[in-house]
């Protein structure tokens, strides 16, 4: 799936990915993979886990997976299918007890809080849940203050306005976070080239940048982006090319 401002566009299923791109090559340019089930209806967690297993079969980096996690069992199923971390969104607002139980069971480092934020007409930001379908009352700062007190290991902050546009990250969404946060921040939504990734990483509040943009899959886009970032002095982990081994 590709999405633009949260409207989904079907690209192809996992077989399409395997046929059209050598994902195991692309995967060598990333530190971590995030796999989300963005189905809006008729979610089938079993099929999703089968796909996750196949993705993780030849990807050897940490994987965060989520989309529709509503119970310990949902999380456990993902963790047994190759995921190392669980991504949660709606329960951050609707079921904070679940977040606590997940952290107790699997450890705080296992929980990634995924937060979708949209600028309103008055320049304030709001958080949306349920696949971006439901606007929460109170502004984003209010919710982020609450969420930062939950036992989560990372915060994945996504700009719905920039999502899929390739126009660059909205760095202002970070202003919604409380200061003195001890949890790593992953910035998402809007990257369209390596310059955008560098802009995100240059912000001292940002620990990681995420991208799902098509440039990842075109030619050696992601490989080149990583190479440029390393050449520019961004401290990314380095691993040898497989053929050198």
């Amino acid at each position: 799936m590709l999405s633009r401002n949260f409207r989904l566009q079907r690209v192809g299923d996992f077989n399409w990915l395997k046929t059209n791109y050598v994902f195991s090559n692309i995967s060598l340019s990333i530190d971590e993979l995030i796999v989300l089930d963005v189905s809006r209806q008729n979610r089938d967690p079993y099929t999703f886990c089968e796909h996750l297993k196949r993705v993780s079969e030849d990807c050897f980096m940490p994987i965060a997976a989520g989309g529709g996690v509503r119970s310990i069992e949902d999380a456990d199923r993902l963790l047994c299918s190759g995921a190392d971390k669980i991504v949660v969104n709606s329960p951050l607002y609707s079921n904070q007890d679940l977040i606590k139980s997940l952290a107790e069971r699997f450890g705080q480092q296992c929980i990634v809080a995924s937060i979708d934020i949209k600028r309103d007409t008055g320049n304030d930001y709001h958080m949306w849940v349920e696949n971006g379908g439901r606007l929460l009352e109170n502004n984003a700062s209010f919710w982020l203050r609450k969420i930062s007190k939950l036992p989560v290991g990372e915060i994945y902050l996504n700009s719905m306005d920039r999502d899929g546009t390739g126009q660059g990250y909205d760095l202002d969404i970070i202003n919604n976070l409380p200061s003195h946060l001890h949890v790593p921040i992953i910035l998402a939504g809007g990257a369209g080239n390596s310059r955008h990734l560098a802009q995100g990483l240059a912000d001292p509040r940002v620990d990681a940048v995420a991208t799902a943009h098509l440039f990842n899959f075109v030619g050696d886009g992601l490989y080149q982006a990583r190479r440029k970032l390393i050449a520019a002095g961004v401290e990314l982990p380095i691993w040898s090319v497989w053929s050198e081994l």
Partner: protein
Amino acid sequence: MTQRKTITVVDYGMGNLWSVISAFRFLGFSPHISSDPIEISTAENLILPGVGAFPLAMKTLRERGIDIAIKKAAENRNTRILGICLGMQLLGATSTEGGQVIGLGLIPGVVTKFNQSKNKPIKVPHVGFNLVRRPKNSRLFVNLPDMADFYFVHSYRMLAEGLDGHVATCVHGDQFAAAYENDNIFATQFHPEKSQTNGLALLQNFLR
């Protein structure tokens, strides 16, 4: 092509076996999962993975007779053992996690929680890729550079001081043992199955 070496992955209900198995499959091996003490004690290459708490893991190993099986396998010089993450800690002498708990004692190391330094606070758990300094003469790190990135997720670690054998080190606050090898006992605190080609190379070396 499937290679002929046999690999036995210990299943004691803690840890994500799928990733470890996928990595060995990728390298052309057909790992075998087992919780049977007899199979474990006679394995050719034994992998002890693990994610979770030390006391519960030791209790489970003991209840299933796997602790004795692993020790038997270690005495048998034809068996190579690789402990990964919690698996490395379990091979150690003791851990302070949940009190003072005795480990398998195959590595003379003590496992303790990360020290919080006053000057420069560190994040615990230690999560993410971090640089590992390899020991000079090492089987695991053949063809890897002096410093290489590996993926870590842990709150406890084995101190490097006083360990015999070849010890790779990593710094998070203070220095700790990132990997260990001595004779037929091998261990990594990081996850080679989650460390891209650096980790695959290390697993390949273990089986070489």
